[in-house]
């Protein structure tokens, strides 16, 4: 009975203690960025990374390190407005944001950020202006011609190439500009960015031919040759396996389309033609599936399996695997 009488005040006391206690802290690894120098140091480590050849680095949470740095810098700007009011780190933050933005292909924003850093004067001014100029050129090049990420808005859209020749001329202009820029930025971290942009232009060119292959004469041949060109020109790229996969996918699509337009049981079906398409697709998938330590390896082996399963639909007297 006495215990019962004590229970109520004890319970109240426990509640009171719980209310006063500090809320539990999460895993210290995941606490927010502590200061500007932390973010700048991590970003700086990866400024010279060759992101053309190798995947961009990831931070301790698995995010793209450039994107994570940008977001953390923005959070610091917003949350520590008071501490930053003196402006002693304004140019540092703006410059660092420029370095992050240019790796995320936001060249116009990067250029603006560099200019903001330059406006503050100080030791970073000259480098900021130089970087702003390079980002302007990169932005100018990125806006030339067809690109798969720019949705065409109607017939009058200047991004809409009227025909393959116009597209090719735009693509050539873009690559020429980038190659000239590559000479200018030799031995700087921009070298990798420019190579990525050239690859991007080549990808856009190939994707145009792949997208329009059914509407143009010899469209399939052009699409194949453009994807082969992409593979050949960017063997060193981190995306090399992906390019090979795209080429394999196109061969696989052509094989499927061939069986749709020339049913295997019909007299029009030509086994060697089908065999050539199957051999090409399988060989390319197999090449990628043999690359240890890449995620494309799993993709390629599954796609190869799926593709070979499709060939089971074709009679054995028309196709012998």
């Amino acid at each position, binding site marked *: 009975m006495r215990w019962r009488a004590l229970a109520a005040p004890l319970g109240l006391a426990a509640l009171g203690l719980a209310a006063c206690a500090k809320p539990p802290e*999460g*895993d*210290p*690894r*995941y*606490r*927010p*960025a*502590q*200061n*500007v*120098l*932390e973010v*700048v*140091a*991590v970003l*700086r*480590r990866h400024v010279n990374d060759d992101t053309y*050849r*190798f995947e961009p*680095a*990831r*931070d*301790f*949470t*698995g*995010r793209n390190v450039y994107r*994570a740095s940008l*977001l*953390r810098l923005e*959070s*610091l700007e917003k*949350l*520590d407005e*008071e*501490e*930053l009011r*003196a402006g*002693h*780190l304004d140019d*540092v933050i703006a*410059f*660092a944001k420029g*370095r992050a933005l240019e790796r995320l292909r936001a060249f116009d924003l990067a250029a603006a950020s560099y200019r903001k850093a330059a406006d503050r004067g*100080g*030791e*970073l001014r000259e*480098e900021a202006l130089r970087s702003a100029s390079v980002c302007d050129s990169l932005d100018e090049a990125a806006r030339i011609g067809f690109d798969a990420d720019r949705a065409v808005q109607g017939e009058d859209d200047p991004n809409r190439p009227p025909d393959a020749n116009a597209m090719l001329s735009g693509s050539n202009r873009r690559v020429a500009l980038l190659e000239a820029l590559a000479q200018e930025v030799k031995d700087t971290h921009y070298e990798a960015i420019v190579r990525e942009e050239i690859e991007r232009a080549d990808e856009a060119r190939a994707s145009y031919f792949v997208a329009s292959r059914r509407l143009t004469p010899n469209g399939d041949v052009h699409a194949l040759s453009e994807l082969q060109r992409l593979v050949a020109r960017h063997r060193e790229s981190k995306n090399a396996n992906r390019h090979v996969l795209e080429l394999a996918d196109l061969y696989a699509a052509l094989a499927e389309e061939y069986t749709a337009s020339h049913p295997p049981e019909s007299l029009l079906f*030509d*086994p*060697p033609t089908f*065999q*050539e398409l199957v051999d090409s697709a399988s060989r390319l998938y197999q090449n990628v599936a043999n690359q*240890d*330590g890449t995620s494309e390896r799993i993709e390629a082996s599954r796609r190869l399996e799926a593709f070979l399963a499709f060939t089971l639909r074709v009679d*054995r*007297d*028309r*196709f*012998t695997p």
Partner: protein
Amino acid sequence: MIASRPERRGLAALISLAAGLGLTACGSVAGPPAGSPLEPLATRAPTVPDDVDFAAHDVAAAALAEDPQGLRATLRRLKRLEKERLEEGFQPSGVLPFALNLRNASLDDDLRDRRATEKLLDRDDIDPALRASLNDLLADDPLAVADARIWDARTIRFAEVFNNLAEPAGHAMSNVPMATAGLARALVGVAVAEHMADELIVPERQALVEWKRFVAAHPESPQAPEIEQRIESAQGAWERTQRDRVLRSARSALQENQPALALAASEQALAYVPEDGEATHIRREATARLAEARAERQRTLGAESGEQAALPEARGLAVALLLPHGDVAGEATRLLTLWPKGPLEDEARYALALAQEESGHQDESWATLRQLADADPARSNMARHAIALVDSPDQNPWDAFTAARTRDRGARLGWILLGPLSSGPRNLDLPRALEWLIQAPSYLDALSGIPNRLISYPWMTPWPFGRAPATYARRYLERDPTGPHAEEARSWLEDFEATRGNWAAALELADQAAKPDPAHLADLREKAASQLLAIGKSERRGDVRATLVRRVAREFPDTEAGREAGKVARQDAERQTPQRIRISREFLRENPKVAGPEGLGLRPELLDGDLRNGELHPDGITLAGGRVIELDFVAEHGGESAEPVRRFERISSERLARLVSLLEATATRNALVDPDDEVLPDADRDRFFERARLGLAEEPSPRATAQSTYAFRGMRERYGLVRSRESILPVELVLQGDLPNLGLGAFPRIRMPKPTPDAILYR
């Protein structure tokens, strides 16, 4: 009179023997014939149709015109004519069973057709090939197939238990204690197998598909309601099987703290069995863990407010870090001196590591980072960044390589000691401790296999170790080809490639050595050339083979294999023909009609086994593309085992059409009559035959993918004089000796049904 197949084979053997004796006695070989090896084509006199032929025509016409009454009437007429033939003492024409089959095929109802076919098979005047076709037709009945698969499933289930128990029981005579222990283990094994087994196994799933096929084709059949019940029951079991499978994945994903995978798998399980209790629980748990992880990740993107966020002392180092050639080391040291235990100490050390790396002191840089990574994350904000770098195989491939190499050494040692059990007990979807307990006796067994594994270790093919370290070593060389460990990585990779027999890769790596050893390089070049040549020679496609072989000849001219590649390339070029469909001499002897006046029209003495009057080489005849055939003859000097003398003949379209028609018909018929004499599918062969029959083979296709290398070979060539037969008994007797325990056992083992060719579709 046509000799039966065994008789023909016996005759061929006698002829060969006689030929051999003749050769020994006389010792003279005539070589290829002086004139044409082909006889003039036999002219075909038009056949005058008799009453049976007319009746057969009328049966076919009535069937095609879908005239059941006409069909019945013409069949009656055909039967009457056949009867008259027999009464007059003639042999049956053989047409009647075909006509009856045609009548059956014209029936509207598939089930009636089957019943009529069964009745037709009772006749004793059916051609063997037709009988085989009719049996195939009956075997394709969905219900019969389903019954067979259900029988297979029952056999598998029973055999798994029986075979597990029979083995230890069989040892009971020689070693009772061991047998008792074995029996106990077998019982545990049976229980575990039952626990792991799918509710519906592959043959049952095949039966389910066949039942569905039957009901779709015959919804009105009296058997349909019963079959539908079976479908419902099996379908439920199949869904539960799938649920169990994905739940197993979900469970282990949750155990391994992979909530995204666990969530996906649990949702899949719920799609199979909605509101399943365990799947719902796993989904809830996985969702909560994911939400927690996302919140933690999101937290890192924020910033801590306070004066430490923007300390003015940070500016100098920050600017140095951002300038392309900033004095990072100087500024970091200044900061550390100015404020040794200050709030920016970690940042300064991290920056120092960066400066060390950029000045070429990679090892020192990684040592600094490792030191930072060891700090308590609660006290050091840079520890997490250092951990991310040190642990990343992309950023720090050397450490990844050394760690993987250590693991790999452990794996090798583990394999030698414990074999396949070295990676721990097999996942039995049970608590781990129980899995260890159940499989503990297997570890004792595994130890007894150490001598065997030690002996086989150096010759293991394919080499199963070293793939992970190799990946990281390559990554290190890609990132830092002149790094401090580049030579060590290269040398290790070279050894790895050499161990697994990839000499071409080993040579490439040896070439990159700082101080290559010429003798070692020469040895590797020889081995690489031999390897590439072997790959080239095994290539099926002519164009790819030519490219590979020529590459060896071009790149390795100073090696034995390179010189051989040159010869192979030259021979290939000389022998290159658009087609390579071969008909061996043995096939022609076993099927004389193909070579005879109805087919190719080969001079008979070229197949009579007498070398004195010229003889076809065992390679026989090759359809070389277009209307050209290659005839290989036994050379005047050298005998049958020597290289043949090749002669090319251009034949007429008619001769070619006759040859391929007869060849295809004979091979197909042989395959129907004798299942061992199968005709393997070959699209390019069939296409060539199709065009040859139509007289369109004049222009051979130059494409490599159009070339067929199919070979029609005789049965004796394939199986020898006596063909081994697979036992038809469902049980085999096994005699087993056990060296470590000096035991001997004999026990019966039930044969497992072989997977059907379509089992691949049920994986």
